[in-house]
């Protein structure tokens, strides 16, 4: 579903933000992408989604290269960024219709999905209002609804749980699981370990731009007495 190889990126000449990153995600997998602040999670996701370009390496989504086969690749995923900055002077429903048009969602499908997701996230009453009257969490839920709307095979989210209330956080987890059950894949970043622990098939740990682990939770904490937290802290220890 997603294959990234030898991804390298530096914003300036001195610091390397991503260093030769390789990752492969299969159909139906739910992957948690964890790492300390500034590890390079957002950078990776931005390169995968075509927001920024990498210096080296390639990204393939559902068999389509993001650089050479851009449209097909972009039709294969949707993205929720860590900051809910979207064009705000339109109403929520205008935005959702816009996204549905871009991804060719039929009228029936969009009606059914928008109603379902917006009710679950409890933003159905706000859809007619301008986005700039939304709270941070509402904007985020609108973005998640928009990203779920096309039902693209790969669902990518950057720190989605930040700013969500417990109810919505739970809804999101269920929707992610549901998406994988239907054969889709999910890649989301977080720095909150609890979210990953009882949700993901596999965990990718990134530190200082390097992928230091990519495996199932069980394999990562081989020693059963040690918690993920301890393992994580040990692996990313810079002393």
């Amino acid at each position, binding site marked *: 579903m997603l294959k990234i190889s030898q991804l390298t990126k530096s914003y300036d000449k001195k610091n390397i933000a991503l260093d030769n990153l390789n990752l492969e995600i299969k159909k139906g997998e739910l992957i948690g992408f964890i790492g300390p602040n500034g590890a390079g999670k957002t950078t990776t996701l931005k390169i995968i989604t075509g927001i920024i370009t990498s210096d080296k390496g390639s990204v393939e989504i559902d068999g389509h290269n993001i650089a050479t086969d851009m449209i097909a690749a972009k039709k294969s995923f949707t993205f929720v960024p860590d900051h809910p*900055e979207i064009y705000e002077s339109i109403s929520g429903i205008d935005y959702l219709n816009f996204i549905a048009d*871009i991804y060719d969602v039929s009228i029936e499908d969009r009606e059914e999905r928008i109603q379902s997701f917006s009710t679950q996230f409890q933003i159905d009453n706000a859809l007619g209002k301008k986005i700039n009257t939304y709270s941070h969490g509402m904007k985020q839920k609108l973005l998640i609804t928009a990203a779920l709307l096309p039902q693209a095979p790969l669902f990518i989210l950057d720190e989605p749980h930040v700013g969500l209330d417990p109810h919505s956080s739970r809804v999101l987890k269920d929707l992610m699981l549901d998406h994988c059950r239907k054969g889709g894949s999910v890649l989301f970043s977080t720095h909150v370990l609890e979210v990953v622990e009882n949700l993901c098939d596999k965990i990718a740990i990134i530190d200082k731009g390097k992928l230091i682990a990519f495996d199932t939770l069980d394999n990562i904490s081989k020693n059963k007495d040690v918690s993920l937290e301890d393992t994580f802290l040990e692996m990313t220890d810079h002393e």
Partner: protein
Amino acid sequence: MNKLLKLIRINIKDTTGRYMQQMNAKGKISGKILALLPLLAALPAIALIVIIYNSFAQINLGYLALTYTNIAAIILMFVSSVPLIVSSFFYSKDLSMLATLPIKGRSIIIAKLAGLYPYLLIMGLVLFGTTSILYLNDTGFQIRAIIILLLAIITLPVIPLALGTLVTLPFMSLVAGRKHRNLFTVIGNLLLIGAILGIEIVMSKTVSNSEAIIKILSQKDGLLNLIGKGYPPSIWLTKGIVSSNLDILWYILVQISAFILIFLLASKIYDQALKKFNQQESSGEAQKISYKKTNIKLLLLKRNLGIIFTNPTFLLNTIMTIFIPVILFVLYSLMGIMNLNTLNNPAILPFRDFIVFGIIISPSILGSLSATSISREGKFFWETRVMPIRHEDSIASRELTTLLLNGIGQTILAITAYLILPVEPLHMLVIIITVIFTTILMSKVDLIINIERPYLNWTNPTACIKNNMNVMLSLGSRVIFGGLAFLIYYIFNNLNATYVIMLIGLLSILLYSIVLFIFKKIYLTKYSQIDAI
């Protein structure tokens, strides 16, 4: 007080820092050379001032140029201060952060004004500073004059800022909390600028009455009083520099009062206008929910237009650059400056086609809408990046936006020009076709400029539009095109005007093919490599 100074410092640091960051966006030497470009824009103004000064100096009244440019500087600063104040006070994103800090509202206002000060100071320097140097050079650099002029230049923005604040804020507090406050803001600003231009025109008309001039010239300080009539402090300043200590006192008193006025009003302004204005729109009216399909190209066009139309700063700027020729044209014809007699004068008949062509083409020459089309999106740019839209479509929709807006302005101008200055239909056709090709060329050139220098990380919409070197580069491209067009006119000056315009049209087509080739070769890829934030 200490906190206020800190706030001012961080404000100015932020402004200059962002400017420098933008200048060196691509690092390298080219960035530093680009930083000098605004100076080039000042050159024609400086040349004009030298001419004005010399014509006054010829009749031994060099000091009158001081009065003249002092007023010009004040008016320019005042007109510019209005959109600057609106944008940095009401539509800048740092406000919510500042509002949470334990600082007095007054300090926020003063710090914001201080952030605008350097912009205005530069305008003052170009206009009044040049005259000051010329005057000092003529009068032998007397210490007294040097000190007064230096103080005058440094404090020049105080009065325009005070006036700008006084005019803008009551209006903003009036529209605050209203449903269509953005619309009101734009209309109000347009009316204000229109009114200022109108006053200018009326004032300059009274001067052109020759009988009155003779009468005025016979009085002591008659000409000085006439020129400075609209703004007495300029008279006091001029007299003060030449000799009178009393007048200098008056001038200083006015400056101080303006300063005190700002200070006294500041906290009121904060409570009455700023805080009120930044409450979210209260209208809870929700739109009906419907599910409907729209064509993707149309969607993108709508989005691009929406980004302009829902941001008052962008809207005002677009209207001003694209419709300023329309506004001036209509205003001038209304005020009788450009009446039918002057335009239908047999002496200018051979140039009529050129005049009509110049009028219709002006929106795409003066405006540089495409040069900020990517920058305008700012933090929203990632949206178009993630969606499965071809880069070609995304770019085409931006061009289409520019062409649409230009087209509206040009259609209005074409109709008005045709009514006032009828040219033969066939000539009109040639003119219109040339205008279309030139406009398409300009919009492509602007887009290349913006792809080369996108500026996405802005917090203040004015910074995106005005502070953007792209606009300068875009104007530069117009100068080059104008030069080439003039070359054609010069070489073929025995040809009929229509043929010359046709050749200019061919020039546009030729240049467009070259630009298109370069675009496809280089800039399509470069566009795809712009890093969104």
